[in-house]
């Protein structure tokens, strides 16, 4: 029987802790049909800008739309790849350089589905979710991040 999935919250206040990632991995040890996990982590870079270096990114989102959009992406990726599990977490608020702001985690019986699905999720999250990053420089100026 198909499980009906409902929108899940993907937002985390502030940075995503490595311990949260470890816990998420450990939670999957009871699913012994899984053969491979693929994980992508986005980390805030201290890019050089005019006048200073990035010291943090402040994330805001159109949350309702982002959650609906994330749900649709999730359903589409589940339909396309034979996945066992999929988890998406994105930070809101301030994330300092060196900290994790995005955590995408896919699991499947064989590695290829997990790897391909994870990559596709990352691309779609960056392109389709209404989330904005404002780069805060060490001189306290700021500028809106531009995704490439």
């Amino acid at each position, binding site marked *: 029987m198909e499980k009906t999935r409902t929108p899940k919250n993907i937002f985390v206040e502030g940075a995503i802790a490595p311990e949260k990632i470890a816990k998420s991995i450990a939670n999957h040890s009871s699913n012994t049909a899984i053969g491979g996990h693929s994980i992508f982590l*986005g980390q805030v870079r201290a890019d050089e800008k005019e006048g200073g270096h990035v010291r943090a990114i402040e*994330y*805001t*989102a*159109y949350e*309702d*739309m982002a959650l*609906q*959009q994330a749900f649709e992406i999730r359903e589409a990726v589940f339909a396309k790849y034979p996945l066992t599990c999929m988890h998406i977490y*994105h930070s809101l608020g301030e994330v300092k350089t060196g900290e994790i*702001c*995005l955590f995408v985690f896919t699991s499947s019986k064989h590695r290829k589905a997990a790897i391909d699905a994870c990559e596709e999720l*990352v691309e779609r*999250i*960056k*392109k*389709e*979710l*209404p*989330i*904005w*990053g*404002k780069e805060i420089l060490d001189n306290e100026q700021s500028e*809106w*991040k*531009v*995704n490439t």
Partner: protein
Amino acid sequence: MKILAFGKIAEIIGKPQLEVDDFPTTEILLGYLHQQYPALKNHKFSIAVNKKQVNGNAPIALGAEVALLPPFSGG
């Protein structure tokens, strides 16, 4: 009607929410916004109606949730 604004667009408008007359289409809404906030002409943004991005000129039903979205930069 209520208009939500995000990121750079909210900065230009000066607030995250606008209360405006009920406009029937996104084109008419855009005309109004460009007139009220000329600086918007220099910035790329899309419009979402009821949490879906619309292309070109789209109708706005009464009571719809309308939002102004600068280019996304999550991740």
